[in-house]
Structures are given as C-alpha cells and as structure tokens.
C-alpha cells in the first residue's frame, strides 16, 4: 500500500501536507523535465553530427549512462511522494572495481536502459502535462485567494462571474475557494501519486534484480566469512606445525642437556631456560586454541564445546544433540559464541552454574547458554553477560558484537534476555545449511 494512496483515502487528506507535496512534485517536474529533454536532444544531436566520424556512434552507446543519471535524480525527487524512497535497481559493485569497468557495467544493465526510457517519457509527455494541469490549478487557487484585493481595485472576471467589489471578492473566496481547493487537491493528488507509481515501476528494482542483489550480497558476505575462517585455519596450522614443533624440539634438547650437565650454575640456567620454554609452549597452546580449535575440526561442535566447558572455572552442563556435522563456518560461529559467552559468564555474571544446550529444529541450529548469575546484562555492560546487537559502548561485548556480524552473514541471529536478578540467556540461531 503506497502512502500517497493511503493519504488520498484518508479523511484528513485536505489538511495534511499531501496536497502540497503533490504540487511540489508536479511543479518540480517542470524544470527537471525541461533539462532532461534538453540534454537528451543535445546528446542525440551531438552524436548525429559526429556519427560520420564514428565517435557519434560510440557516444550513442553511452546513452544508458544518461539513463542512470536521470534515474538517480528522479528517484531522489520521488521521495516527495514516496517517503520511503525508491531503492536503486542497479547492482552493487565492490569498491575495488575501476571507473571504466563501472561505467561499462552500468551501461549494459537493463535498469539503465529502463531509466533512459523513463527519461524520454518524462521529457516528452509528463512535464508538459504537469505544467499545464498543476499550473492552471495553482493559478486559479492563487487568484481566488487574492480575489478580495484584486476586486477592490479593478474588475475581475472569474468564469461566469464578474467581481467588482472587495465584498464580492470575499464572498467568492469563501464560496469558491474551498471547492476549488478540494477538487484540485484530489485531482492533482491522484496525478502525482500515479506518476510516482510510474517512476517507481520504471526506476525501481525488478523482482529478479532485487533477488540477484540479495543473493550477490549474501554470497560476498559468505565469502568474507569463509576467507576469515580459512585465514584462521592457516595461522593455526602454521603455529602448530612450525612454532610449536620448534619449541617442543627446544624443550627436548634442554631436557637432554639437563641430564648431561653436572650440578651447578650452568645446569641451573638450563633448567630455567627449560621452564621458560615450557611456559612459552603453554601460552602458545592457549593462544592457538583461541584461534581455531583443532578438536572442532576433528570431532565437531559437541566435543569442542565440552572442551571449553571443561576449561571453564564454573560447572557447565552441556546438552548438545546434533544429527550430523554442520558446515564448518556454522560450527565455528557456534563454537565461538559458546566460548565467548562462557568467558563472559565467568568474568561478569557471578554465576554458580551454567548450561549450554544445542539442538537442530526446522533446519536451524539453536544454541543457548544460560547462567544463574545476577542478570541485567546488556551490550557493553560489565556486570553481566555482555550481549549482542546494536553495540552502544562495546566495553565487555566486543567479542560478541563481532560474532553477531559473522552470524548475520550466515543468516543467523544472536539474542539476549537478562532481567535484573537473572537468569541470563544467550540464544544463537543459524541455518544448518549455507545455500538457500
């Protein structure tokens, strides 16, 4: 339901801003329309003149680009009648694409040609019609308003009536004014609403264009998540296969050296070095686990969640029942949600117990983390499980805020309920498959 049409059927139409919006829409079409047709004719003339030397023909192929421009201006102007605006039918392009490529792509888009067609229609028919109807209507309205003053000085002929005095002028204003305003407002309202509808249908995205845009957006975001995941796995592998192995090798050498060295300062130093190397190994193990847990890859979500639960300082009950392994990015997102949530519970919630549940329903993975802590958790709040969306001041919740973005790319959500006094419950939902 278009708001302009809704307004026309409303009883408050005449006292709303809609009659004046209609005037503004119809009358503003005059300068824009004149400019449009002038540019189109100019461009056509230039290309006709230059066509013998081929440039003209090339110029002709650039015409759809004019359509893109016209479309942009007209979509902007249509906001007068469609407050929500008309969304662009053009496909989004990544910022890495150069200007030449951009123009070439736009030129070939069907939406550009459609906008060009609208431009012709607009320049040839629409604006003259608007100038005529809105012009007459507004003139009559203005003259009617001024009738008392004009009639005081000179004779004023209004259709069948001739007004000669100010009193007659006033009478005319009171009797005829409202009628004219009513009639013209409705007529022009319909005209403007119809035109904005036409603009929307020609300049807005077609169904398949919308769907394609959404699909492209989704794919590019999935690519991003994927790239992120791949990179994490690469770093993890590098640390495991490179740095960690070398450190283990070092501790082995130091261990052997300890056996060989006699009691004394030299041995004391080797023992110290051994201890430091082991501390480095322990730190590394901790860091690697945070990057991309190997257990998740090898044994799946349940095993990996049990591992985090085991490491948690407070008792955690894990109830996860999954029929199958899920795609890696989904498992990873779920894992990091649980990991982050349990970390937050331990830090902020003053809880004594925590429960992690996971199940699949209607092809969606649901994971909830519930604690019996103090509650009142919000985004960026240090006092409870920091949450999710809308990050006001992400003090404690930066980890989860990042996860919301990841989940969003997968088509999932993260919700938090945390009344004061608890319990706090974080709920994650995500599709089980990546393709629609």
């Amino acid at each position, binding site marked *: 339901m278009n708001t302009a049409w809704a307004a026309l059927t409303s009883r408050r139409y005449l006292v709303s801003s809609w009659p004046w919006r209609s005037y503004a829409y119809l009358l503003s079409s005059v300068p824009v329309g004149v400019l449009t047709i002038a540019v189109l004719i100019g461009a056509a003339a230039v290309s006709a003149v230059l066509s013998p030397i081929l440039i003209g023909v090339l110029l002709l192929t650039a015409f759809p680009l004019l359509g893109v421009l016209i479309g942009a201006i007209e979509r902007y102007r249509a906001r007068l009648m469609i407050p929500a605006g008309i969304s662009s039918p053009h496909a989004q392009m990544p910022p890495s694409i150069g200007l030449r490529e951009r123009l070439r792509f736009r030129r070939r888009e069907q939406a550009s040609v459609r906008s060009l067609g609208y431009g012709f229609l607009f320049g040839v028919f629409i604006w003259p019609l608007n100038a005529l109807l809105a012009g007459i209507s507004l003139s009559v309205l203005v003259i009617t308003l001024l009738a008392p003053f004009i009639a005081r000085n000179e004779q004023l002929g209004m259709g069948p009536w001739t007004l000669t005095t100010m009193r007659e002028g006033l009478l005319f204003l009171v009797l005829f004014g409202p009628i004219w305003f009513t009639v013209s407002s409705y007529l022009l309202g319909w005209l403007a609403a119809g035109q904005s509808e036409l603009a929307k249908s020609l300049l807005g995205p077609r169904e398949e264009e919308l769907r394609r845009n959404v699909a492209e957006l989704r794919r590019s975001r999935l690519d991003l998540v994927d790239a992120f995941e791949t990179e994490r796995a690469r770093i993890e592998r590098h640390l495991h296969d490179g740095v960690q192995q070398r450190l283990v090798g070092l501790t082995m050498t130091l261990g052997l050296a300890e056996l060989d060295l006699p009691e004394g300062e030299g041995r004391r130093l080797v023992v110290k070095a051994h201890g430091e190397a082991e501390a480095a190994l322990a730190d590394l193990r901790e860091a690697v686990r945070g990057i991309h847990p190997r257990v998740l890859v090898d044994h799946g979500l349940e095993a990996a969640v049990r*591992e985090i639960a085991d490491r948690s300082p407070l008792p955690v009950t894990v109830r996860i029942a999954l029929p199958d392994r899920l795609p890696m990015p989904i498992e990873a997102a779920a894992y990091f949600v649980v990991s982050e949530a349990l970390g937050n519970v331990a830090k902020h919630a003053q809880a004594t117990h925590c429960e992690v549940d996971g199940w699949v329903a209607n092809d969606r993975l649901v994971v909830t983390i519930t604690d019996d802590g103090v509650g009142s958790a919000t985004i960026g709040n240090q006092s409870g499980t920091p949450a999710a969306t809308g990050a006001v001041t992400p003090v404690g919740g930066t980890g989860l805020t990042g996860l919301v973005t990841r989940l969003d790319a997968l088509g999932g959500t993260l919700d938090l309920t945390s009344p004061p006094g608890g319990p706090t419950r974080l709920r994650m939902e995500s599709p089980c498959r990546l393709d629609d």
Partner: protein
Amino acid sequence: MPARRLSIVLAEDSLLLREGLASILDRAGHEVRDAVGDADALLAVVRKEPPDVVITDVRMPPGHSDEGLRAAAAIRAELPAIGILVLSQYVADAYLSSLLESTTGGIGYLLKDRVGHVTEFLASLDRVAEGGTVVDPEVVRQLLARRRDDGPLAALTPRELEVLALMAEGRVNSSIAAQLVVSEAAVRKHVGNIFAKLQLEDGRDRRVSAVLTYLRG
C-alpha cells in the same frame, strides 16, 4: 639403564621431533626400531613385526587430522599386547575417549611438552610398556575440573579425587604419598575407599578400572 630394553616404533611427521625423540630413546637404551612419518607407514611396520611400544603423534599426514589416533586404535584392535603412547599437541580428551575403548594393554596420552622432562617421559614410557595407564597431568587437571557434580565420582571426597588423579597419571602409591606429603598407609586407605565407592570387584585390575572410570566420567 632402563628397567627393560624396549623395541619401539616411532610415528611423528615432524622430522625435528622425530630425531629428538629418537635420540632421547636411544640415550635411554631403548631400541628405536622404526621411525616413520605417517599413519600408513606406521601400520605397515607394526604389522610386519610387532614392537613392545608404539609412540605416535595424533596429527599426521595425509589428512593432518587424527590419523595417528586411528592408527593407534587399529593397532590396539589387532595387536592388543602392544603398549601405545600417544603424543598430542593439545589438551583435549575428545581424542582420549577413542583410545579407552579397550582396557587391556598399556595406554599413554601425553602432551608433547612432557617429552622435554626426559626422566618423567621415560618413566611414563616404562609404565605403558608394563601395561599401565598414563594420562597427562594437564588433561587430568581438566577432567578433574569437570567431574564435580555428577557421575560415579560424585561420592568421592576431594582428597580421594586427588589420589585418583595421581593414579591416572600412572603413579604408584609411594609416589602419590610423596606428592601429597602423607604416609603410604594413608594413600592405601584412600585407594581402598576409592575402590569401594566405585564398586570395583576384586580380581580385575582395579587400579586401571578406577582410572578408566575416572577418565570416562
């Protein structure tokens, strides 16, 4: 000199660690019969001539997943007499459970860091060769943190859990007593209580059973 000269097959894909391990074992007087870099080669050499103990990494080519563990499970199924010592890069008992399917034969699960403590490592190796169970203290600590409110272990006192954890690491009573700074008699009493509370019958290897109960939660 070790209690017994063991014949050992080593499976580890990192050349650095393979050489290091081999030199440690060599110095300790064991015989490193074969040192291989992947799970298939491990299975091949073990089947050809069974060693006393197999030491294997969890992650190995070609998949770099848990090939080593799967090879260990296969060896356990075919040749249950061979002691198996698994070296892992992470504290993760998910890898452990598949090893504990059977109770016969020695089993060890150690973090790679532990190899650096040469004497302890060699002692663990001996226990595995004798048919004992050795679990890395780090893993034990983690398991201990989990089994707090449910399972058959709920009946144990904290002290008894401590004793059980040390048993899981493969220690004998005297070593447990030293670690906890109590008398050996006290440890024996705790061990008796543990067996009673876990309702372990006489006749089986109750020590192993207790540890397994513990590890399985």
